[in-house]
């Protein structure tokens, strides 16, 4: 007798989200099964990895992450083009970290210029992120959402403290929106509800349950993502069917395993390989728990994860 695998059927489906415009537009999400369970249903789109770039040189990144963008990272336009043209990125995530009051404290006008320049230089979809300073992000993201009007970007991140302003700006300029809560599934659902109660289309939201790096609380992110996916699929919870974001790079490239030098910890082996592996491992774990969108830094880590996706999908 032939072997028949047991198959689950699910009541719900993850919303498919398309970002960007023209023939470089990309769609992710849309599956009606748990991650990579294609044998049980349909997974029409592969997860999307966006390369992280930022508005100011990445002096805060560890050397091995910086090195990968040597010669281009002094200018966000060069950096973006490098990702698109040389690294064949399908999307980029522009983090306006220089707007943070404790950093360069760049103004909304500065941020608008950076965003316009980057958008003019690339045709792939762009995710535009603030500096995660809830107050400053409201003025920055409102300005850049308008500057990026009709490029169908993702704007983020809207949090409990600032979602009204940011969601309104994303809505007025036809963007998608990242809704971020802090590792609490119930608050994640609540934020999605509040945003949709403003009239924001629930199918234009991306949920960020907050990332964490391997060894530094990854299991919490993993568990929240897994439970969100199960609620979306098995309970058909329409407030939890948004694609999930894993903002991997910024959490990974600050932990000891990616920053410690070989001189300090020779027994840990090559620092560069170690950092790449740490980012790829973290990203893969989140893909398996439910992430459809990843923001990553190191090209070799991205390549490794793309290969895993290719094998699993």
């Amino acid at each position, binding site marked *: 007798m032939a072997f028949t695998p047991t198959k689950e059927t699910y009541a719900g489906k993850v919303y498919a989200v398309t970002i960007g415009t023209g023939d470089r537009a990309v769609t992710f999400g849309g599956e009606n099964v748990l991650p990579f369970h294609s044998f049980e249903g349909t997974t029409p789109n592969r997860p999307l990895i966006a390369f992280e770039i930022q508005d100011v040189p990445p002096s805060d990144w560890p050397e091995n992450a910086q090195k990968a963008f040597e010669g281009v990272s002094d200018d966000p336009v060069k950096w973006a083009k490098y990702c698109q043209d040389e690294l064949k990125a399908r999307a980029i995530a522009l983090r306006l970290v220089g707007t943070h009051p404790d950093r360069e404290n760049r103004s909304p006008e500065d941020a608008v210029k950076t965003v316009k320049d980057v958008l003019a230089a690339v045709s792939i979809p762009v995710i535009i992120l603030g500096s995660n300073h809830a107050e400053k992000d409201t003025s920055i993201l409102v300005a850049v959402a308008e500057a990026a009007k009709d490029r169908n970007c993702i704007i983020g991140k809207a949090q409990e403290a600032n979602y009204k302003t940011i969601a309104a700006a994303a809505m007025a300029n036809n963007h998608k929106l990242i809704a971020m809560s802090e590792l609490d599934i*119930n608050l994640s*659902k*609540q934020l999605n*509800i509040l945003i949709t*109660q403003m009239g924001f289309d629930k199918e234009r939201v991306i949920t960020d349950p907050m990332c964490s790096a391997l060894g530094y609380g990854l299991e919490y992110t993993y568990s929240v993502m897994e439970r969100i996916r199960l*609620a979306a699929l098995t309970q058909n*919870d329409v407030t939890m069917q948004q694609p999930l974001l894993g903002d991997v790079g910024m959490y990974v490239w600050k932990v000891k395993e990616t920053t410690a030098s070989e001189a300090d910890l020779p027994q840990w082996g090559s620092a560069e390989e170690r950092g790449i592996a740490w980012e790829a491992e973290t990203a893969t774990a989140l893909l398996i728990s439910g992430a459809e969108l990843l923001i990553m830094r190191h090209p070799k880590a991205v390549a490794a994860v793309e290969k895993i996706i290719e094998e699993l999908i």
Partner: protein
Amino acid sequence: MLIIGEKLSIIAKRVREAMMKKDKGPIQEIATRQWKEGSGMIDANIGPAEDGGEDLMQWMVTTIQEVVPLPICLDTTNASALEAGLKVHNNEWGRPLINSTSNDPERFPILELAAKYNSQVIGLTVGKGGLPADAEERAGIAAEIMARAMEYGVPLEDIYLDPLVLQIATSQDHAVKVIEAIKMFQEMNDPPMKTVVGLSNISNGCPKHVRPILNKYYFLMLMNAGLTSAIADAHEMAEALNEKKLLDDVLAGKEIDDAAKMKEIKKTLDVIMGNTLYAHSYLEM
């Protein structure tokens, strides 16, 4: 169903101030109201009461029993404050209840007090190791508390097992586990063990308008599971009892006339039973 009036707690600002100033007025007013609303016992929660706990507990017990003919649930972790309260408790109005012992060795001496003063005692099913993971673990701890009570000479009829209600906003899966534990506790002895819950913790952290709704239907679900008593708001529980038929009809799959009420009950049951994920706005979805 025994309702133990919950309102006299040091956590409430007005009560705390009255306790500090030894102002009988607010304490007696609140106690009297709870008695009129149907409480069969009054909880006097003085907190850990490390300084002057003995005086404070005695003052609370006598202040309440001066105006209300009910027994007191003496609620503190301070064993000597408990003993002081038990000494002055007027048993003419019924036997006192100690809140609480547990499976933590530090709380074992409380069983000695229960035996010495012929008091009833709540056995909170937690150990030293933290919160119980599920109903089975709660039942396991309950068995240990029961065995220890017998060692100390406290009859099992005098034990109220408390499965520890957790907040639905952060520990949703425990709502069902507590209901299961209430059923399991009863099967652990013949006659069935008595049970009690600190009810309103279920809605702790939830929006103000949602709290009574969760409290009421959770109470009714626990009651259906055989709960014998609850530390709760007597007024709210009286309302809950008025709605019991509606809830039972919804549980039986019947339509009820009030469509809005039916929705409210269904959504709340779904959240309690874990069929939908809790969010503060769950009633609006």
